[in-house]
């Protein structure tokens, strides 16, 4: 399987639907340890990204990712805007000039996205953030690629690992973001950022699995 720009547009459209369906769930997760805005902000940003993609109609994968990145940065605010925006912006740069992405390109884009995320948010594994879903997903994707998987296999492995990482945030004490102010009281709650990240990876894997 190879992914072109139209495939990425389809991904963003589907992810926007998934986030809209999970808007209240993400708000509730954020209410427990943060300020109750994660679901609302992502929903607003992705709706704007969907509209922007329709208006600009980019065709190259890097242009699709860049359009999403700039829309998220300018519409979301909070921590999610710059973090997801940076991730998409770095992914865009990593696939510059490629009309289609194969498994190795996808992994390179995921690696660039995570590097951007870490550079921007300065979170480390175990801080109870998006990185706790993103890190295991990237490791699994790289492992699957080395083992010879195609894009479908790579993304399936990444999605499973992202969900395991998301669940593993439950007992952690937050050290970044607003949840960190709760100290030990942040333990026992699933991180909303790791949850939206796991949803993104699951959406990618599900779409890839249904592609011809």
């Amino acid at each position, binding site marked *: 399987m190879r992914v072109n720009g139209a495939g990425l547009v389809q991904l963003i459209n589907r992810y926007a639907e998934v986030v809209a369906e999970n808007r209240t769930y993400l708000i509730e997760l954020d209410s427990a340890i943060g300020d109750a*805005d994660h679901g609302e902000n992502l929903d607003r940003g992705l709706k704007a990204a969907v509209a922007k993609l329709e208006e600009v109609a980019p065709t190259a994968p890097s242009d699709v990712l860049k359009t999403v990145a700039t829309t998220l940065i300018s519409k979301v605010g909070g921590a999610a805007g710059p*973090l997801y925006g940076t991730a998409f912006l770095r992914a865009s740069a990593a696939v510059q000039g490629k009309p289609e992405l194969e498994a190795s390109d996808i992994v390179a884009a995921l690696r660039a996205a995570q590097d951007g995320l870490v550079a921007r948010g300065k979170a480390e594994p175990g801080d109870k953030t998006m990185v706790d879903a993103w890190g295991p997903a990237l490791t699994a994707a790289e492992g699957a690629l080395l083992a010879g998987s195609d894009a479908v296999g790579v993304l399936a492995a990444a999605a499973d690992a992202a969900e395991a990482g998301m669940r593993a945030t439950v007992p952690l004490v937050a050290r970044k973001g607003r949840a960190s102010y709760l100290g030990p009281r942040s333990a026992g709650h699933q991180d909303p950022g790791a949850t939206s990240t796991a949803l993104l990876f699951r959406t990618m894997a599900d779409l890839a699995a249904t592609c011809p």
Partner: protein
Amino acid sequence: MKKIINDPSKVVDEALAGMAAAHADLIRVSYDPHYIVRAEPPRSGKVGILSGGGSGHEPMHGGFVGFGMLDAACPGAVFTSPTPDQVIDATKAIDGGAGVLHIVKNYTGDVLNFETAAELALAEGISVEAVVIDDDVAVKDSLFTAGRRGVGGTVLAEKIVGAAAEAGADLAAVKALCERVNASVRSMGMALTSCTVPHAGKPTFSLGESEMEIGIGIHGEPGRERMPLEPANAIVERLLGPIVEDLPFASGDQVLLFVNGMGGTPLIELYLAYGHAEHVLAERGITVQRRLVGNYITSLEMQGMSITLLKLDDELVSLWDAPVQTAALRWGR
């Protein structure tokens, strides 16, 4: 949820429209992107002072735009920091050629978005400096958190730095002054109730009739500790103790005492608390030389308060006393 709103997604736009109408003599509002600037154009050679943050903390920051205080405020969505394009456009709108100071509260989203905006503004040839306010003593160990939050001290910093910019201080001087205020100010807050974010539709947390949260921020986020409700004097002492010990404030110090309501607490309770706070400070030999009591940095309709202490010297006193004419703070002019 019972609120005087039409549609949760239009709260900020509609509130800004009302604010623009109510204070047409003081401010102008841009809606795409959202920012509030002074009604009069920027004065050539004056450093612009800009702040911003999530909406829901009214009158902060839009209520502090005007003579002697802020030149612009960037309101984000409710409890969400503004986006970089808001900050860049507002920065450009107020630059009088002498550069712009961004006063940022220490929250992850605010810091990330203001940093991004400052980089882009610099790339466009505008001198931008930023100071991050982090006065909340409830957050103890910055090695294990995102660092102390910016709370009530932000109001005092905006007033004092705004006065200095009005008087002609340059960008380096206002930045240094803002850092000095931040180093001299400490706060702590508490809540009797949660607040309800309009888009969430229900309270962020729930507190029993006989409980209170100590060490809250300003976003309806839970505090550090939940405990049985106490009488006002005990609450005041519980907040003042860590504040005084932190700087530390010592006998002989002259201070500004700021008792702030979180939005849902009436002035009668804030004055009651203020009276005891001044008494406690007097017992420690600390003299309250200036004071501020009221709802200035709120958390929607949350019941609760925060206490802020700023150590004063002659320069800070004269800048605090300097004329100010904004929607929410007004004296001397």
